[in-house]
């Protein structure tokens, strides 16, 4: 357990003479779920295709099970790496069971017939991916999530130590994304297979993967456990962009809004956080009210209508809806203090 299944050393990838990314080094230990992250155009797909042996590398080494990937023939490679691609293939008349059965091709004879053992492996793969109840359905009749499960089951049936998935969650809705990621997590845990997937779902990747590969434009590849990368502030560098800030504590991005005015507020708690968020979106920053502020907002979470607007120490309005309250505040121009610094970014 935990030996290294795959090594990448000083790899350069690209097409012809054009290097997309160079100086890439990484490892895939056995039984780990690894997420490859990177902006569009950094060469995520090219890296995946190079590892799968679909395209030649421009330099460096990819070694799986002590052998160089590009020196293995199709048959040998098909027993090492199984892939799930982003391309939406339409296979006329293919049922889920047939597709998963094709995953056994590296092991079947000339006519491709499945023996008893193959059939058991196929059934088990469909069971593990939670698609067994649809085994006789046509692929064309499945939802996107179910399709993805069927293709993952195909990769499982191929019985390889490494499974590579190119953006398996790309076309899925949020619940289906979480489900697919959990399924992959579960496969890595129970089967000891290594899984490498590319994704844009940073939050899910941080929570579910053992290791992240961050591909920067042109390389190199920054790798490590999500926690270590958080410690090293790797994400800030990676996603440097105006108006986006990565919060190491939550592992989430924060969108910063330009603020042009501010208003005094008294109060705290969940209601306060919500009000701050809603006003921030409109360009209004909340500041803590001093005792002498006679124009202010008050948040009282115990009141029936928690949001109150005070003008000259008189409560002129109380609301229980953030939306209505925010509109009221924005209408009361006298309340808002226009800031001298033109644009201040804040959450």
């Amino acid at each position, binding site marked *: 357990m935990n030996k290294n299944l795959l090594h990448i050393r000083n790899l350069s990838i690209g097409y012809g003479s054009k290097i997309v990314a160079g100086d890439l080094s990484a490892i895939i230990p056995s039984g780990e779920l690894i997420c490859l992250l990177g902006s569009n155009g950094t060469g995520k797909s090219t890296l995946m295709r190079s590892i799968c042996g679909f395209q030649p590398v421009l330099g460096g080494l990819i070694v799986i099970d002590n052998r160089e990937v590009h020196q293995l023939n199709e048959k040998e*490679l098909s027993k090492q790496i199984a892939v799930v691609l982003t*391309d939406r293939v339409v296979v006329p008349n293919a049922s889920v069971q047939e597709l998963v059965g094709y995953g056994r091709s590296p092991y079947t004879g000339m006519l*491709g017939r499945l023996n008893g053992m193959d059939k058991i492996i196929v059934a088990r793969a469909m069971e593990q991916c939670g698609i067994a109840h649809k085994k006789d359905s046509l692929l064309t009749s499945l939802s996107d999530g179910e399709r993805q499960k069927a293709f993952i089951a195909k990769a499982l049936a191929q019985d390889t130590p490494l499974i590579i998935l190119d953006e398996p969650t790309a076309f899925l809705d949020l619940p289906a994304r979480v489900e697919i990621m959990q399924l992959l997590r579960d496969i890595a845990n129970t089967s000891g297979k290594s899984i490498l997937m590319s994704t844009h779902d940073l939050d899910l990747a941080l929570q579910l993967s053992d290791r992240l590969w961050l591909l920067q434009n042109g390389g190199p590849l920054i790798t490590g456990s999500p926690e270590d990368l958080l410690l090293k502030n790797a994400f800030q560098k990676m996603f440097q962009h105006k108006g986006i800030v990565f919060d190491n504590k939550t592992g989430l991005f924060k969108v910063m809004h330009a603020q042009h005015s501010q208003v005094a507020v008294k109060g705290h708690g969940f209601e306060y956080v919500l009000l701050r968020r809603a006003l921030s979106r409109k360009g209004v920053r909340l500041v803590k009210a001093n005792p002498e502020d006679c124009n202010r907002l008050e948040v009282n979470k115990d009141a029936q209508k928690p949001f109150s607007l005070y003008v000259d120490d008189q409560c002129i309005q109380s609301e229980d809806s953030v939306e209505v309250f925010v509109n009221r505040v924005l209408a009361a121009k006298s309340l808002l203090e226009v800031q001298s610094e033109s644009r201040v970014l804040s959450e």
Partner: protein
Amino acid sequence: MTPIFQRKSVLIPLSLGFLLILAALNLALGSVNIPIAEVVDIVTGKGSSNVIWENILLRTRLPQTIVALGAGMALGVAGLLMQTLFRNPLAGPSVLGISSGSSLGVGFVLLVAGQVWGFSFSRLGIWGDLAIITASLGGAFAVLALILFISHKIGGTLSVLIIGVMIGYLSNSVVGVLKFYSMEEDVHNYVIWGLGSFSRMSVDRAYLFAIITIVPSLLALFLSKSLNLMALGDRYASNLGLKIKRARLLIILCAGTLTAIVTAFCGPIIFIGMAVPHLAKLVSRTSNHLYLICNACILGAATALLCNLLARLPGMESELPINSVTAFIGAPVVISVIWKKRKENF
């Protein structure tokens, strides 16, 4: 659960029975009315008192039936191979330009020979037939070799398809030029060849034809694993251990040979190769080519027999050109399949 008639154990015997009935009808029906009992006697070798009937059956209907059977089978399989390889429901045996190559070969013999040596091949009898067959095979295999070379040199399946179609256009344009400068009689002969026919062969040659079409059709069963994987797309196929280039070469070689043989002996038969794969996929709900090829064999033979039967229905003075009948049957089949799919998918 699949409906009972779609289960493999029921379907194959059922369609084989249907095929036998069609073959029997091809023997029994025709412009001359021969009693069924006599037909049975003649075909089983007991002979008949009526020599004319015996001649009609053994020299016309029997070879026609055998040729239709072999040709239909070969074209059905070739069409299926092409549709899977190119992942295109409109592909057929003719997409690689092989039948155009045949036409070009035959065009040279029928049209140029008349100009250069001043005689018509059609007057040469058996030697003329052989010359046409040889020219057709020559043209077809020349194109096939070219396609295989291109397929080996370049990667993409789509490029092979486009180049095949372009070769088709090129040969058609050369044939057009040849026709323009040819004698009227030669052009007439060429047009007749182009209409296709199952009735150009003696019974001996029909048996030979049956062997060289049915055997490669059945050999295609050994390509079924490659075809299953090719249907998933080149990347998945390669990831599942398939040597893509070799598989593609073998598939093109098999389909090309079948098309070349049928075109050489029967002329370019249209539509069967395109329509039959749709029928084959319609009757059994599977993507496994082991079954699809069996279906294409049986249904291809059955369709050709049906077309042959319709081409010379009792009561008609002469035979219709076979290609008019195949298009008449094939087009509605393709339309109805597309229609049915449309309903399923949405």
